[in-house]
């Protein structure tokens, strides 16, 4: 059993497509999987054609008044369920702040689901907040997509520092390059330098590709509309790298 969060302080780096494709891939090979869309934008809910709405909103959910079990929706794929997003998730920080031990809240809510699912993916909103901290406390793996840009080095350092200051030693940070453009010299250089400095960066690179962008049009995980492409193979490789690191 593992809880895997896809997270980056920055937005638009490929968190959602990673969560959607990896959750789908894991479910296809037989893992009983849940994907929780924590982002109020509800992009992963959209990919699975599930309405980004939950009864009682984020408040009832965080308070524990409404059990997570009753909010889960089956996707169109075997072994894969989803906890959809809700627009009220934009206020999750406030809701968490009002509770005792807010950073432990998410782990507590997830506890009953651990028995049912072998893998839980958390698709997180960008920013660093109380919710992110709660996600870090609850997760075993923090999967962080990084666009090879000058800012990314800074962002990764920030994240590492944050985990250290908060004493979050149990979580395994797994950065990987996302939306990389092989044609750009700068991308190639940054990737080369970053790997030297941060050996924990995974080997697999998810390159920028129009088929990944097409997911929004198809409203499907990539493997459902393309049998084989560089992107589908990259997600498979990425999953293989992560799978062996699952505690």
């Amino acid at each position, binding site marked *: 059993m593992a809880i895997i969060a896809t997270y980056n302080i920055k937005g638009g780096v490929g968190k959602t497509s990673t969560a959607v494709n990896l959750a789908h891939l894991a479910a296809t090979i037989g893992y009983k999987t849940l994907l929780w869309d924590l982002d109020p934008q509800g992009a992963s809910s959209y990919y699975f054609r599930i309405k980004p709405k939950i009864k009682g909103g984020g408040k009832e959910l965080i308070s524990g008044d409404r059990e997570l079990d009753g909010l889960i929706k089956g996707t*169109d794929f075997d072994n894969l369920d989803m906890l959809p997003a809700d627009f009220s998730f934009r206020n999750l920080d406030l809701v968490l702040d009002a509770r005792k031990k807010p950073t432990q809240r998410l782990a507590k809510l997830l506890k009953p689901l651990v028995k049912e699912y072998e893998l839980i993916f958390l698709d997180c909103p960008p920013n660093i907040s109380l919710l992110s901290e709660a996600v870090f406390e609850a997760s075993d793996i923090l999967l962080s997509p990084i666009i090879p840009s000058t800012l990314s080095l800074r962002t990764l350092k920030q994240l590492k520092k944050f985990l250290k200051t908060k004493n979050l030693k149990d979580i395994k940070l797994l950065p990987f390059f996302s939306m990389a453009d092989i044609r750009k010299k700068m991308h190639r250089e940054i990737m080369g330098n970053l790997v030297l400095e941060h050996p924990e960066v995974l080997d697999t690179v998810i390159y920028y590709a129009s088929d990944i962008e097409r997911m929004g049009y198809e*409203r499907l995980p990539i493997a459902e509309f393309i049998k084989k492409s560089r992107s589908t193979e990259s997600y498979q490789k990425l999953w293989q790298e992560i799978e062996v690191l699952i505690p």
Partner: protein
Amino acid sequence: MSDINIYFQIPGYQKAEKFIAKLEKKVALQIAFKEYSVKKFFDSFDWRLYKAGLLCELNCSQTLSQLRLIEMQSGQQIASAKTDEVPTFADDIGDSGIKSKLKPVLEMRALIPLTLLPYRAYHINILNNDQKTTVRIRIKEYEDLPHRLCIQTIRGYQNAALRISKLLEKSLGLTPINKSVLHAALKLQGRKPLDYSSKLNIELAPNMRADMACKKIYKHLLRAIKVNESGAIAAIDSEFLHDLRVAVRRTRSGLSQIKNVFPSQITQDFAVFFAWLGQVTSKARDMDVYVLNFTSYKQSLPDSMQDHIAPLYAFLKRKQVTAQKELSAKLKSPEYLSKLRAWESFLKEPVIEKPVEPNATRNIRQLACKRIWKNYRRVLKEGTAITGRSAPEALHELRKTCKKLRYLMEFFQSLYPKNEISQLIKVLKNFQDILGDFQDYEIQEQNLRKFGEEMMRESTPTETFLAMGVVVQNLCQKRLGARREFSSRFEKFKQPANQAIFKTLFSGELRA
């Protein structure tokens, strides 16, 4: 929270394609795929899974071959595994989920295919405005049975499933069903579930003539012998022979306990035959028991010795094979077949109108009461005479008397109030168990020593004999434990409350 399935029957062998066309006019749907499949149901010969409310089915299609365990009442799947073949015994099932559910129910019984159903399956998705699947529908078009439809609820979309269910029932004329297709398939073969049970259930009328009642009982037992015969010959599992032997023992006990009902020559003649049958089947049964017991022998040893006992298993298996061959030959022999046929003919003959045998025309209830009451008092007498110093033979004799009493009570249970007779049978069974254990342990000790002597001639490693010695010692401990428990079990059996029921049920007719 598990997803719920709702089942329907499609009326009048309506073709699936035609039905789907009708459904398409009412809801947005997509045929995900169609495929040919074959469904095979499995159960033990005595319906252990069915009795436990379980269905075991193997579904083979071009794409997937899956063994599924289904809860009969709700139709929900409780375990599944990808496999092409179903092993005969629960022990050999690879999937731990299915194995853990089946093993305690099946025990030593083999899984036997019940029926084979070819069908064409249509997998249909019902879509919402976002083209998201909210309900899954499976239509199964069987060759000789009414077609079936199953709504598979998707988590979080229960309301959509209920809406479709209502639509199918109200607008498309489908009938909800709660019985598995197994029932319909068995009906097609002229069978029904639970058509075999090793338990006696013979309906007798209290004022029936004793000879007629006895023939009814023996016919029931003869059927048990016949239906178990081929399974015992083929050694499908050990219970076929066991049930066959129980029916033989019951017949023997009936012939010796209910006397002067049939002409003495007939009674004597068949008593000899059934005694022979008991004897020629005993060796194979003994070997079955030792092979079945082997795991417990092994587990009773310290970890370091468990591997040392393996040669005993090989030895037992060899002896089992030889005994099984001998058994098969006997059960196929002309002497067995002709005598059993003669017994069958005799039972089928109408009873003699004015027989000379004094008990033949007696009312069966009177005779039953007399025999049960007599045996019951004998059990009390023999049991009371046993002290801490009594020889094992005394306990063996008592065990035999108890068996006779038990068989009589089971033959005639329909003549007595159900609750009371069941309670007394239970009380007796509890007492018999300790007597049975005592003797079983003793015989096992003796035979293991005997096997040891035989194995010495086969250059068996010394460590095997040491391990066998420990097994014998463990059995001896258990036997002594059973012996110690005897008096408390007997006290429980003969307690006044039980005596009172025995008296009310069985002594009344004598006084009358």
